[in-house]
């Protein structure tokens, strides 16, 4: 298990934003950090990876401290064996796609590389430089580059947002299969509920810098942190509805399943068939 309990205040001019999180993540599983925009999801990933330093707290992975401010333990980022897909992809514009992939790891696993190139449909892009590609293409390359590093931890910050729906669904399935095969730990930031319910085996809901609820995805809607709207998904299974949680109401998009609008304070039950 990865356990974290830390505090951090980001100061930017007159604004400040505080993270105060106690959460745990399952190892060798797909964990999703779910929350609204500005909730602190990306900051959580950055703090877990050591790219940003916490003010105080602890990160413990399998009884080993990555970070402990009490005894001043700090495992440098590059020793945590994390591959990270940033929201802006972080692809190097001076290198072609192939060079980006090969730069990521010495003695790259060619079998895995070929598989990833095929699965992420990158064959025609290999000789191109990232700046000449669309956002969705760049996102796939960033994901491929992270996977070929064969990391122990794969940190994904909204990794599939720019990809069209058909391919996104395919990539979600591939990610699930690959995770089972490679046994790495995924911590993925998402605000797409459908994605969360499809890929996650553990969900951590973040709101205003705090982990408000966590557990298996079927409990995800138990507490919606932003508008205190409560909802419970009472069985697991293939998701056939898409749910959008808005500030003022909850809308079930497929009206033939449920068409009622919910207001703040309502408690709802959503059955997934």
């Amino acid at each position: 298990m990865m356990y974290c309990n830390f505090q951090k205040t980001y100061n930017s001019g007159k604004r400040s934003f505080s993270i105060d999180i106690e959460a745990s993540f399952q190892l060798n599983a797909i964990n999703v950090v779910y929350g609204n925009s500005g909730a602190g999801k990306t900051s959580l990933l950055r703090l877990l990876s050591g790219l940003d330093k916490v003010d105080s707290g602890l990160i413990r992975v399998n009884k080993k401290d990555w970070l402990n401010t009490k005894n001043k333990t700090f495992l440098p980022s590059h020793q945590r064996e994390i591959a990270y897909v940033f929201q802006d992809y972080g692809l190097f514009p001076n290198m072609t796609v192939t060079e980006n992939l090969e730069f990521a790891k010495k003695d790259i696993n060619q079998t895995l590389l070929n598989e990833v190139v095929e699965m992420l449909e990158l064959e025609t892009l290999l000789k191109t430089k990232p700046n000449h590609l669309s956002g969705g293409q760049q996102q796939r390359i960033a994901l491929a580059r992270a996977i070929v590093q064969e990391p122990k931890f794969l940190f994904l910050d909204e990794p599939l947002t720019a990809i069209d729906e058909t391919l996104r669904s395919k990539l979600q399935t591939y990610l699930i299969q690959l995770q089972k095969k490679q046994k790495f730990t995924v911590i993925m930031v998402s605000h797409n509920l459908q994605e969360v319910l499809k890929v996650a085996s553990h969900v951590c809901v973040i709101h205003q810098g705090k982990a408000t609820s966590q557990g298996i995805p079927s409990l995800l809607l138990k507490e919606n942190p932003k508008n205190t709207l409560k909802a419970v998904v009472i069985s697991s299974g293939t998701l056939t509805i898409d749910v959008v949680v808005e500030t003022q109401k909850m809308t079930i998009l497929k009206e033939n399943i449920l068409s009622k609008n919910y207001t703040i304070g309502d408690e709802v039950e959503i059955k997934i068939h």
Partner: protein
Amino acid sequence: MDFEPLLLTFKLASITTILLFLIAIPLCYWLVQTNSKTKPFVETLVSMPLVLPPTVLGFYFLVFLSPNTTFGNWLENMLGIKLVFSFLGLIIASIIYSLPFMVHPIQSGLTALPKSYTETAVLMGKSKWTILTKVLLPNIKPAILTGLVLTFAHTIGEFGVVLMIGGNIPGKTKVASIAIYDEVETLNYAAANQYSLILLSISFIILLSVYLINGGYLKRTIR
């Protein structure tokens, strides 16, 4: 026309540009990465030549490096290095005087790069040297070109510092800008004009090439 001042000018500009580039890269990398409280002081010192009259800089060089001072005396007697009225002194003075022209473009270029480039490479376990040479510098080529060219062009145009620290020794410290001043003093306007025209043309061509390259005009023509 005596070509020696021109050759000396280009020799000084070339050496200054190369050495300053080697100094500026680690300095800029440090300035971009650091959260040290000394950073504003270093940035201020780097930028000083922009606002300081060249004669002030030249004067202090003269004072501190003169054989009459302890340091200057030690340099000359112990190491046999004479910095005042020598070409070596000119190089050191030029490096300091042109510091902001190299540092500012490169620092701006590095600052403008997304943080995720460095962070991705750090997480990959790449060394600082690899990150700098394979990731950062190749992505700020226009900024590097601007720094190199501005430094070169600025060194060509140096006058005050050169006159103070180097004087006017033919073949040693008499660069083109000094030669122009010399010719004007002796009312030899034709020679002054020849030097001036050459410096004017070269400066124009150098700066134009930067704008053409950085603006992508040459690539467009090639395509």
